[in-house]
């Protein structure tokens, strides 16, 4: 039997994988797609670089990553591994919080501010610079380079809540947004939707060209399973929430959890890929950006609609 390993990290953005795994959707969908003896295994990692390494060493076949991460991998592996997106997972929300009452827009952050993002190639880091460009023009992009610090979500959240003076800004995602929201000392400066103007794909499942060409049936099955999982999430957010809590314990009430799942958008249609790509090319994070978003996805998603 073929074993296919999907690697993911913690976070609500990967809920479709969790749900598909918990409901056994992968097995069924893969079988339906014509690869009956395939076993799909889901593994959790703590960081994105390990997922890249896993794909490149073929120890995992599919990896969940953020849109910018996929774009970088796509550029670097063109002609060798051909890493592309297989299917989007979510259009999660990101909110920039601050503990400085006087900060209303990103332009108000003083030079001494320290704003936590998880890493410099995450959606948050790029969104922050997009916002800076909007407010301050080209010069604003560089300004924030010196103010961003890389901190894991839980540490940043803890510091914001406990009123530590070390950081005064934090670009959060769910479920940490729900925790910050409850704190009266913090307020939102801006969100991803505000910056991009529309919801955008935040997490997606990527794989190598070799895998897709060798195992087209499995690839199709996985895309189908994710789509089914998203349907389930949209239809039964409360049940999806229960499944989530089993996989990742988090101190949230059922209602808050359901609300949070509703607040994030779930779609297998790629959105905002080119917005990210264009901006990343501007800040030299991509040297040869894709000309069309379709270049960065495998079929059948590439054949569908998106932007």
């Amino acid at each position, binding site marked *: 039997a073929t074993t296919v390993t999907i690697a993911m990290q913690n976070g609500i953005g990967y809920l479709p994988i969790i749900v598909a795994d918990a409901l056994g959707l992968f097995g069924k969908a893969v079988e339906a797609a014509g690869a009956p003896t395939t076993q799909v295994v889901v*593994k959790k990692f703590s960081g994105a670089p390990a997922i890249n390494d896993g794909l490149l060493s073929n120890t995992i076949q599919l990896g969940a990553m953020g849109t910018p991460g996929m774009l970088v991998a796509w550029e670097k592996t063109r002609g060798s591994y051909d890493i592309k997106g297989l299917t989007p997972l979510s259009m999660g929300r990101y909110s920039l919080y601050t503990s400085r009452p006087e900060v209303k827009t990103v332009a108000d952050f003083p030079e001494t501010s320290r704003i936590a993002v998880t890493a410099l190639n995450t959606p948050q880091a790029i969104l922050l610079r997009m916002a800076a460009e909007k407010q301050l023009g080209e010069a604003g992009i560089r300004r924030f380079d010196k103010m961003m610090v890389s901190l894991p979500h839980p540490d940043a959240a803890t*510091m914001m809540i406990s009123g530590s003076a070390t950081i005064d800004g934090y670009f959060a995602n769910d479920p940490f947004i729900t925790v910050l929201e409850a704190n009266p000392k913090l307020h939102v400066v801006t969100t991803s939707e505000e910056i991009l103007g529309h919801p955008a794909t935040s997490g997606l499942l990527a794989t190598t060209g070799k895998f897709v060409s060798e195992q087209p049936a499995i690839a199709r099955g996985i895309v189908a399973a994710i789509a089914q999982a998203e349907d389930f999430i949209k239809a039964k957010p409360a049940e999806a929430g229960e499944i989530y809590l089993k996989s990742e*314990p988090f101190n949230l009430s059922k209602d808050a959890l359901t609300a949070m799942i509703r607040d994030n958008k779930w779609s297998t249609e790629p959105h905002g890929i080119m917005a990210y790509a264009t901006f990343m090319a501007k800040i030299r994070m991509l040297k040869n950006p894709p000309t069309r978003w379709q270049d960065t996805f495998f079929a059948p998603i590439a054949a569908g609609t998106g932007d």
Partner: protein
Amino acid sequence: MTDVTATPRNLPRPDIEREPEDISRIGEISRPIGLWEGIFAITAVRRALVLIGLGIAWEVYARWLGNPLMFPSLSDTLSAWWEDMSSGRLPGAAASSLRVLLIGYGTAIVLSAVMTTLAVSTRIGTDLLATLTAMFNPLPAIAILPLALLWFGLGTSSIVFVIVHSVLWAVSLNTFTGFLSVSQTQRMAGRNYGLGGLRLVIFILIPAAFPSILAGLKIGWAFAWRTLIAAELVFGVSGNAAGLGWYIFEARNALETATVFAGLLTVILIGLAVEGIVFRSIEAATIRKWGMQNH
């Protein structure tokens, strides 16, 4: 030559002669020791006191700080610890971690025995060990990661590989230093009996260098833990085989700081147990008995 005894200022004194008692067996002549002094002389008691002191300091500082999200009190930690101990989650995680740890630690010890034996027997071995240690010892685990994934894929073997990397050099360095410090005379005595190569290492160098080796093993043990916990995060988990590292990571993600500290407390407790039981017994049965530890 000065004739010094010709001008003695030592006045003669009468001779004294005594018939020594026949004491075929002299028993223990004990000095009375006060009760408290006696209790305090027990190492375990003193160390327990140290622990209690540290515990109190923790509790007091945490309460004074009043920031349980960043630094929970000992009592909070203990209750989280107790909960997960009784639910079997912590023992399971600890057992899973310990298994991987012991494999990695054991492998590293075997490898370092081979390397140091080579190093002490041949000149090129010395150069190899010195160069490899200087090169690889400072490399963090992420440098090893790609190779680990390439060679071993995901899972236990990769973690073992990373643990070996973190233990091997420290143990080898200490062992080799110990070997080089063995007294020339003891080394010659061994070679005089026809011992050479591996037999010299086993019968002379290892016991003679045992204090250094033991220190290396202690350091290696500690670093194996550190690496294990870090590596478990990177290499992740599937299903329920999660170890202590993942336990801590999950709790951290969930902002359950008391649970994070419960995980760390488990590491501390295991560390204390290993030091207090394993290493101390080895010390008592070897270097302390042999008079190699002078205090």
